[in-house]
């Protein structure tokens, strides 16, 4: 569409104003559908975003051959205070025979450094929001005709100039027009991620997706970091029972049984029919040698049934055994 329009442009403009008008209309419609998100941004910035943002303090690591994955990841990790260089990350994300790094591994490797990886919603708005909140964003672009996949780190934007500011490849400060950026970025399905320290939440975080991100950290990272992340989560969304279960589990893992019990009792008050809360509470009581108190709690969980019945039964058997029945 754009190609054809460009070829026709000079003669059409010479012929008549009307032709030019019709042509421009077609071009505008064409561009708007080719670059839908930039077209929408043209109507105005989302509320309360500043017109200009640049995270100048974000460090720069020049990419060595093909290794933009390690470089981009090191950039965001170092920006959040982790002492790491691209060289340290090569063995964690780089695939020699593919001469590149997979998206999933970028997410997973950030967790190995105690950061919570969060995939942004595929929206230009959200990219700008994260930048305005001070979070550098890794974006996956396709700069080639077919297979030129490339990670860059967005560190700012200038709305009036319609430019996005990137750390990219061997360029410490690359500016890219919104249109160009959308064109190379949309080819990855607008893939973008942030890597947050456990005491912070991304500006665009969605409650359930953020909980899944924290739980992924709990699964692979250390329990202390995960505990901080759950505490931070619960300050924002205090009524989320699943997050309370997560916090209690990390406390339990760290051996803080009374703290785990306190969290679970709070959760039980809010959701007395949660089989998981009851099971874990009973187990926590039993681990403190209070099997007499644990038994009525686990009996309530047994009565509720549901998909965790087998685990609940196991917990009950353990408690009965310790009680000598």
């Amino acid at each position, binding site marked *: 569409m*754009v190609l054809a329009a460009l070829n026709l442009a000079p003669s059409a403009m010479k012929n008549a104003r009307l032709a030019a008008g019709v042509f421009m209309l077609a071009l505008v419609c064409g561009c708007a559908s080719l670059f839908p998100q930039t077209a929408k941004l043209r109507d105005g910035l989302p509320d309360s975003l500043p017109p200009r943002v640049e995270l100048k303090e974000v460090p720069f690591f020049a990419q060595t051959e093909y290794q933009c994955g390690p470089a981009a990841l090191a950039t965001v990790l170092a920006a959040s205070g982790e002492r790491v260089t691209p060289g340290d990350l090569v063995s964690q994300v780089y695939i020699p025979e593919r*001469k590149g790094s997979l998206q999933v591994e970028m997410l997973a*490797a950030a967790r190995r450094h105690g950061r919570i990886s969060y995939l942004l919603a595929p929206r230009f708005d959200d990219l700008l929001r994260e930048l305005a909140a001070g979070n550098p964003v890794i974006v996956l672009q*396709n700069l080639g005709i077919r297979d030129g996949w490339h990670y860059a780190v967005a560190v700012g934007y200038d709305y009036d100039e*319609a430019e996005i500011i990137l750390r990219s490849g061997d360029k410490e400060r690359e500016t890219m027009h919104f249109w160009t950026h959308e064109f*190379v970025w949309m080819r990855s399905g607008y893939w973008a991620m942030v890597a947050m320290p456990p005491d912070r939440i991304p500006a665009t975080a969605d409650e359930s997706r953020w909980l899944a991100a924290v739980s992924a950290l709990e699964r*692979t990272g250390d329990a202390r970091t995960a505990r901080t992340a759950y505490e931070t989560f619960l300050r924002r969304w205090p009524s989320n029972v699943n997050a309370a279960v997560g916090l209690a*589990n990390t406390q339990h893992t760290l051996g803080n049984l009374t703290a785990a019990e306190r969290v679970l009792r709070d959760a039980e008050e809010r959701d007395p029919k949660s089989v998981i809360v009851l099971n874990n509470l009973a187990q926590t009581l039993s681990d403190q040698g209070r099997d007499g108190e644990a038994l009525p709690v686990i009996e309530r969980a047994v009565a509720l049934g549901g998909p965790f019945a087998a685990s609940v039964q196991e917990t009950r058997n353990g408690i009965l055994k310790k009680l000598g029945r």
Partner: protein
Amino acid sequence: MSVWAKVISRLLIALMIWTPYQIATAGMIGTDQVATSSAQADRTTVLNFMNRSDVTGKLQSFGVDPSTAKDRVAAMTDDEVQSLAGRINAMPAGGDVSTAGVILIIILIAAAVWWFWQR
């Protein structure tokens, strides 16, 4: 195969499935299980194990050191592993920058932008 060899290999398989990826402490229902139902748990566990060894094997065949590959896969969630299993060849791997393509595209876009943004 003798009876003992059979028993031992079964035991080893069971251990391989359970040891590296089990995080919840005994008796506690893990946070990552909250969303999944336990009716599917056994099937999912076996599937996850196969997916993980598939992805680990693929990474090794792409030149990643075997023990490193295992650590890398261990850092992934079940969903992430599943998204890669059997599809790793088709997934984009960011790294390459083919300059010729870039220049062509940038010229095209710059021209389009110049036309449109000036109006």
